[in-house]
Every structure is written in structure tokens, then in C-alpha cells.
């Protein structure tokens, strides 16, 4: 079974839950920017939660199916159409051989996930099918889809059925986030206390260049730095540090002007100071922010961050229960960021 790409969309890529474990050698996590939505899309079509699906950003592709298939679209409200006839999101639907799946314009959110029963069967690279386009790794030939591509689909293994749906209150991330929770550190001491208060008070708008590597924000006041004698190797720019590791979710502010939250395809280290790290429970919400959307950064404690992670986990468990998907076996996923 295969899917022919008629139109590619803006930057449609194959993504699963990513390839953790290689950040030390500079290979990023990759994987879906909204991992909750990816998991649910897979469950709706009877795949393993971590199966490979398509991530469509802002604009959907046009896809022709060579055989019958079971499909679900979750995440952003990017209305699917089958031969031009609307189909619901967050609900599995049947596609007949020869039919074309296309999408109406984006109504809400930023990234939609298209799961197909049997998953998008591109080769595993370092344990993942995710596309890391910057490194030309994984996915389909290490790149975003192009018109004329043919996507291989595996054999459906699950027992999913047409019309399986997710209750509205379990469609996590379907409302646009207005606050991102973050833990200050490790270098927030580099800015003055007044300046840090200003950072939390200001509204920050998503810059149009925000992508899978990092989400850049602008519109808040520039940061004021504490005077220092530059440590050896840091250079004279007050926003620089001696090189350090960059965690997933860390917020760097080059020059003190525009914060960048590092996301799934980020570099693993460098010399910009980090004001804090967005908590893992809120990283999916960033993946659904459109350009010009405004957010505030809210400082939280480690206890609050862990409580938020448990809450996300509980929501996922409710989805699993509602769909009869296995809850056990996800213990590693529970601990992963």
C-alpha cells in the first residue's frame, strides 16, 4: 500500500515520537512538535502510539491513496476533505482506493497529524522514523515531502474502526495557549531582577520564522544584564556564556532581545545564556502556536512542573481508556520529556 503526494503542503514531514539518546553527539530529539496529538492520531487508527505519521504545518498536503485505508487527523484544526467532501478531525474515517485526501485552510493551531493504519513505513534511522530535515536524516530521504513522492504504508495491525472519536475535553492543545510555564535557570542570574519581572509581565508574539528548531518570540522589552567581567571564552556580549548544553525547551535570548525556545530539532549546545526552560507539559502547546500569537512566560517550581506532567499523563490515560488502547507499556514514555 502506498500514498502518492500530489501537493506537498508547506513543510510536511514524517514524524514519530523522536529519537532521544543522541543529543550528546548533536543529533536532536526530532519527532512530533505536538506529541499528544500524534499519539491520539495513532490510537484512532489502531497504530502503536509512537508510530510514524505526517506532521503538516499551517497547510495540508493533497494525498492519493492506492488502496483502502483508515485515517485520522488530530492536532490543529486543519479540516480534512475526501474527494472534496469534509471529514471530521479527531475522528477515524475510511479512505477508499483512489480517493484524494486534501485540506481546507487552517482554522486553529499550527500542526495537524495525519495517521494512517499501518503507519508511514519509511526506514528506521537510529531507532526512529522522524525527519530531521536540517541534518537530512530519517523520514522520507531526510526531507520534507515533495509533489510526486510515494509514501510506503505498512500493514495495519490494530483493531480500530471507522468513526472512533475523542471527546472534546480530551483534545488537549486544541485551544491556543496564552501562557507557557517555565522554570527559571540556569543563567537567569545574568539579568537584573527588574528585567526578569518585565520578561514575565510582557506579551511575546511568535515570530514568523519560528520552526521545528526553535520558536522565536518578539515584542517584549529588551533584557538588562548584570555587569560582569566576561569569563574566559564567553566573549564580550552580555548574553553570551562559556559554551553549555542546551536542554529541550530551554529559552535563550541572544543579545537580550528576542527569546527563542528550543524545540524538537534544536542544536544541542552553544554559547547563549538560558533564562529558563519551558516545562515538558507545555512543549506540545508551542507546536500549535501560529505566527503573531501572543503568550506570556510564567515561572513555576519543579513541583508545579511535575504536577503538570502528571496531569498531561492522566489526560492521555483517559484517551487510552476511552479507546481501549493499552495503558501499560507506556512507562518509558511516561518519563520521557
Amino acid at each position: 500500500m502506498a500514498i502518492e503526494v500530489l501537493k506537498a503542503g508547506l513543510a510536511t514531514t514524517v514524524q514519530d515520537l523522536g529519537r532521544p539518546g543522541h543529543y550528546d553527539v548533536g543529533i536532536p530529539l526530532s519527532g512530533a512538535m505536538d506529541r499528544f496529538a500524534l499519539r491520539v492520531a495513532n490510537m484512532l487508527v489502531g497504530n502503536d502510539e509512537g508510530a510514524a505519521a505526517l506532521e503538516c504545518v499551517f497547510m495540508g498536503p493533497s494525498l492519493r491513496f492506492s488502496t483502502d485505508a483508515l485515517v485520522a487527523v488530530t492536532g490543529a484544526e486543519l479540516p480534512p476533505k475526501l474527494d472534496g467532501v469534509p471529514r471530521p478531525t479527531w475522528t477515524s474515517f475510511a479512505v477508499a482506493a483512489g480517493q484524494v485526501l486534501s485540506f481546507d485552510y487552517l482554522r486553529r493551531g499550527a500542526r495537524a497529524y495525519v495517521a494512517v493504519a499501518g503507519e508511514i513505513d519509511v526506514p528506521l534511522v537510529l531507532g526512529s522514523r522522524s525527519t530531521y530535515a536540517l541534518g537530512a536524516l530519517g523520514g522520507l530521504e531526510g526531507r520534507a515531502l515533495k509533489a510526486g513522492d510515494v509514501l510506503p504504508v505498512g500493514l495495519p495491525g490494530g483493531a480500530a474502526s471507522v468513526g472512533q472519536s475523542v471527546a472534546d475535553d480530551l483534545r488537549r492543545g486544541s485551544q491556543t495557549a496564552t501562557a507557557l510555564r517555565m522554570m527559571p535557570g540556569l543563567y537567569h542570574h545574568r539579568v537584573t531582577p527588574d528585567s526578569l519581572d518585565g520578561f514575565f509581565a510582557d506579551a511575546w508574539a511568535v515570530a514568523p520564522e519560528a520552526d521545528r528548531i526553535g520558536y522565536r518570540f518578539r515584542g517584549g522589552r529588551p533584557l538588562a544584564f548584570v555587569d560582569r567581567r566576561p569569563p574566559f571564552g564567553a566573549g564580550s556580549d552580555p548574553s553570551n556564556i562559556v559554551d553549555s548544553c542546551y536542554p529541550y525547551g530551554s529559552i535563550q535570548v541572544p543579545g537580550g532581545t528576542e527569546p527563542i525556545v528550543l524545540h524538537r530539532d534544536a542544536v544541542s549546545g552553544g554559547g547563549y545564556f538560558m533564562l529558563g526552560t519551558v516545562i515538558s507539559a507545555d512543549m506540545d502547546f508551542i507546536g500549535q502556536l501560529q505566527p503573531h500569537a501572543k503568550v506570556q512566560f510564567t515561572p513555576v517550581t519543579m513541583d508545579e512542573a511535575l504536577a503538570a506532567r502528571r496531569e498531561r499523563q492522566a489526560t492521555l490515560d483517559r484517551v487510552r481508556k476511552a479507546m481501549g488502547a493499552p495503558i501499560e507499556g507506556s512507562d518509558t514514555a511516561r518519563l520521557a520529556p
Partner: protein
Amino acid sequence: MTVTTVACPLPGTFYRRPAPGQAPFKEIGDAVAVGDTIGLIEVMKTFMPIEAETAGTLQAFHVDDEEPVMAGQPLYDIDV
């Protein structure tokens, strides 16, 4: 004559010119053929051409050059 309003297919920044200092792709009153570029949307460091899906005469722009635009927002009017 029927005037149709065309919505922007994706969010980003709208450009009416291929590059700064160059002439706009289309002016109001210009004839438009299917596949003609009306403008560009810049998002994620990518410039996505907005191509006409119907032929006609360009009547109006609803978004100014270099202005932010959201998906679904009216972008231009065409008299078909």
C-alpha cells in the same frame, strides 16, 4: 461580473513584491491567469507563492504589503 474574495491559505507575512525595490507581482486592475503569482507569504524562513486558482481581474487587496496575515483572512478580490 462576479467578485470573489480569496482567503489566505496560511499564516505569515504577506509580500506583494518578489524582492524589495522590485515591481509588485500584480496591481489592482491587472488581468490574472490561473497560476499567476499574486504575492508571497513568508513563514518559517520559507516564501510560499500565492497562485491564482481562478482567472479574472484583480479588484482589491485586503492586506497591505509586508503586513502579517492569518490563515483564512481575506487576501484579495478577483472579478471573474
